[in-house]
């Protein structure tokens, strides 16, 4: 009986490993789909339209309006590892948090950080949801938020990186998808 249970569990583990191997292979074969820049644009537009009632569009890379910036990071784990990174100037963050909550903000307080973390969380979820194989097999971390000036985020040799800048009202923000591995 115990042997039977062990054998059954072993079979299930084996089948699961085989399924994960096939999905990874499928993800690698469809890397162009996973890294399709349009998926990111659609995800960003969807989140801003549905949650902020605002439109935004991709623009050429430009420097932020001010040195003080806010960055939110949501990690990916599972079949794909990496992160979704949102970055904007402080004034853009105040504007986005205001639109999201219906409140007015004059400084980057905990509520603004929470709001920007949630925006990043929804962007990460919408982006991975746009790729069927990733949707169920890639988990999201709790958002982390960083504020300050003159800091850089370094990732060593990612498998791929999407970096887009968007205009929202009179401000801009950047969204970066970093994939540092397909497990």
């Amino acid at each position, binding site marked *: 009986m115990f042997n039977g249970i062990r054998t059954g569990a072993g079979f299930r583990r084996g089948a699961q490993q085989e399924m994960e191997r096939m999905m990874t292979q499928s993800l690698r074969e469809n890397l162009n789909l996973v890294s399709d820049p349009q998926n990111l644009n659609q995800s960003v537009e969807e989140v801003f339209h549905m*949650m902020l009632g605002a439109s935004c569009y991709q623009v050429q890379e430009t420097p932020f309006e001010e040195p003080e910036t806010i960055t939110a990071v949501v990690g990916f784990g599972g079949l794909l590892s990496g992160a979704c990174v949102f970055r904007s100037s402080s004034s853009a963050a105040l504007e986005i948090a205001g639109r999201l909550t219906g409140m007015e903000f004059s400084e980057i307080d905990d*509520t603004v950080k929470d709001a920007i973390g949630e925006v990043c*969380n929804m962007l990460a979820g919408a982006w991975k949801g746009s790729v069927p194989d990733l949707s169920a097999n890639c988990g999201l971390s*709790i958002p982390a938020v960083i504020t300050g000036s003159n800091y850089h985020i370094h990732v060593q040799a990612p498998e791929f990186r999407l970096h887009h800048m968007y205009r929202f009202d009179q401000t801009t923000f950047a969204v970066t998808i970093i994939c540092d591995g397909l497990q």
Partner: protein
Amino acid sequence: MSEMRVLIVDDSSVMRKIVERSLRQAGLDPMVVLEAGSGTDGLEVLQGQSVHLILSDINMPSMDGLEFLRQIRGQNLAPGVPVVMITTESSEEHVKQAILSGAQGYIRKPFTAEQVKERVLPLLAAAEGR
């Protein structure tokens, strides 16, 4: 509609406020909102108070939304009370897990107030009719 008591469980206070605003826009007013920042806090609320509706995130520190749901059903803490998951996780697998754990509804973030209304009101009507 008589005064509703709603429990909103999400580690983001901003998201709890957005969900509350969407419920009010859906017509749930007057409404008493109870908030919890994790599944553990949500269970504590339910041990002391009764509610008509529970909305919960899934990805939360300390106790995630699915475990919270299993605990509610396992401990029979809110019998007959509809639970709706509101989450960025949108795969069929996540929906299946939520339904198997005892959720009656599922709303994917990002969402509109209209979507909240469409998912929540029929559940409340059905619960009231039981």
